[in-house]
């Protein structure tokens, strides 16, 4: 069993847990994820590692309450325990000195972007973070991400904070600007990663996305998380979760994410406002 060290509810429907797992914390790197199972009858779900504390032995995860498992998880308090916590899984984020990197974070992706931005900054990159939230009351993690960024651009759907409007407009404006962008990293809902990748493709800027297919074991033994990248089948849990956004077959990923609509409810498409077909 794994003890919950801390629970926070930064904004409505989004929760943050710090879980005691010293062996995982010892090895965690930016871009990796964990698989959790809440209780004996629970399913295994993947969640990105948002932060770690090697001394305390804690791993921070952030999640949106969208279905049965995340609801169960949201009901737990500090001191409670979950049955299983496996990680760190997946390949670490590719961190090098690229030059200027735009980190595009949508929704609670802001929090999972933090370790990546931090590592990029440490590697000597100029980091421009671009954040999108529905409105000011859904915005969180911006200050922390900002602390590892040279520039922070915040926008909200309703204009209640920062700029008003679509992240696509902001991204396009940034890429049209005078400053050369060497790489874009996007973390967010699938459809947003798809549309953002389409924009960066127009500007031929290398774009990395962190994919979020359905997973079971998370160690490469089943292929549930398979995605097509550059025409090849890859297992996101072991070959990713980071891939080149211009090579991903997005429609396939979106269809596969909706394998269990009746079972999982529409909650999976919670963020999806731009693609009614799914």
């Amino acid at each position, binding site marked *: 069993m794994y003890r919950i060290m801390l629970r926070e509810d930064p904004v409505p429907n989004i929760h943050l847990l710090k879980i005691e797992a010293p062996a995982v914390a010892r090895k965690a790197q930016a871009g990796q994820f964990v698989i959790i199972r809440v209780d004996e009858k629970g399913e295994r779900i993947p969640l990105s590692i948002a932060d770690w504390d090697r001394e305390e032995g804690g791993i921070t995860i952030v999640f949106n309450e969208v279905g049965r498992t995340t609801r169960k998880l949201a009901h737990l308090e500090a001191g409670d325990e979950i049955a299983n916590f496996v990680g760190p899984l997946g390949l670490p984020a590719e961190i090098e000195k690229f030059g200027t990197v735009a980190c595009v974070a949508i929704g609670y992706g802001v929090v999972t972007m933090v370790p990546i931005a931090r590592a990029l900054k440490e590697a000597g990159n100029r980091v421009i973070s671009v954040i999108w939230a529905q409105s000011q009351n859904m915005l969180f993690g911006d200050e922390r991400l900002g602390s590892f960024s040279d520039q922070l651009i915040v926008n909200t759907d309703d204009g209640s904070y920062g700029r008003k409007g679509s992240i696509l407009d902001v991204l396009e404006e940034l890429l049209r600007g005078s400053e050369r962008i060497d790489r874009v990293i996007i973390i967010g809902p699938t459809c947003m990663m798809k549309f953002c990748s389409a924009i960066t493709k127009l500007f031929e800027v290398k774009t990395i996305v962190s994919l979020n297919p359905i997973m*079971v*074991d998370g160690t490469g*033994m*089943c292929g549930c998380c398979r*995605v097509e990248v550059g025409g090849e089948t890859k297992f996101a849990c072991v070959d990713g979760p980071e891939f080149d956004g211009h090579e991903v077959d997005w429609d*396939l990923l979106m*269809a*596969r994410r909706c394998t269990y609509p009746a*079972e999982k409810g529409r909650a999976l498409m919670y963020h999806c406002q731009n693609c009614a077909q799914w």
Partner: protein
Amino acid sequence: MPKVDLNRVSMPKQEPLVRARNFNEVALGYTAEQALSEASRCLQCPKRSCVDGCPVEVDIPDFIMAVRDGNMPEAVRVLKAKNSLPGICGRVCPQETQCEASCSLAKKGAPIAIGRLERYVADWELSQGQMEKPQLAKPTGKRTAVVGAGPAGLTAAADLAKLGHEVTIFEALHIAGGVLMYGIPEFRMPKHIVQTEVDYVKSLGVEIRLDSVVGKIITVDELLEDGYSAVFLGTGAGLPMFLNIPGENLNGVYSANEFLTRTNLMKAYLFPEYDTPLKVGRRVAVIGGGNVAMDAARCALRLGAEEVDIVYRRSEVEMPARREEVENAQEEGIIFKFLTNPTQCMGDGRGLVAAMECIEMELGEPDDSGRRRPIPKAGSEFIMEVDTVVVALGTTPNPLVPTTTEGLEVTRRGTVVADEETGKTKKPLVWAGGDLVTGAATVISAMGAGKRAAASIHASLRE
């Protein structure tokens, strides 16, 4: 000498049409009378060729003699002296190619039902409520690490513990047992029996660390640095092979590993009581002809499919599945389409598989595997309507440990090179056995490898 009955005592089973809709165990096991009667057929040959046929060399005539004498504790003792997991082996070993194949009676009639008797003894012990612990050797103070809690790892761990070593097993999943938990269905291998035998291994002092993916949470080299004197790798062959045909990533197309893991490990057949879902359509096609294909097909039927077809590119005689499982599947109503190979999966326009294009095959000359090579018959393509496809083509070793371990030699097929007798790899202090070394094989051959590696580790630690 009384005349020996050349027919074995048959084992009671659930009726085919009843069992095809439930996950309860198909074979019900011998009663005491049946076991006694079957045990009485044993000739107690001086040559003991059955023992040579058993990869872990169980003293078969001795435990059968004990059953015949009604001395069940002695039967348990004899069995467990060589085999820590008899309830498992009695159920899933392919005895017809091992111990039973070399039974003297096999020349004249049916061999002794050694597997069924082994199972009877194991189940008897379980019914007694508590397991007797064997004598453990004096602690040696040496720590050994075992990677993977499948049949190979559990056997190696049990043997090392009996020899007095301190053993820690590192297991990636949330429960120990490997393929016995995620692969082989409840109706062939009840999970409480696997867990009882895992508990027995733990009772020998073996620590099992679950949720521990070696290669990620810790590497083999770090285990050695952390003070483990030897490492045994028993990570199996868990990487699924796909067909590499168009449309294979459509929804409704599963690897057998995913399909069986959801069903068996996650208990998707009990959804929504259990949280893991699984979608099984009206018409299911399972591609392949091994035991895994039989298991997947029979699970699909039990999950409510109306029609389940096994699609196999060779003919019935080349099928690698156990005869008994093929018969069970046929009785339950599984349809076999031989000499048929899928060429593409077609979608319904919304990302869901709706049909499969197949081509008929004919058999040519034998290939490297010794089986006749299937060749497509030009122009014989046809369409099969399906809602679910399960790909059961086999598995290869997961590269996670080999790729994170410096100095381990790996073959082109992804298997780890290890000495067949000792399990020694090319890397000092590291042993390996089971499917990781052989590629997908049997539970008992993995156990045999675990046993031999434990003996070799013991010998090297004593030096």
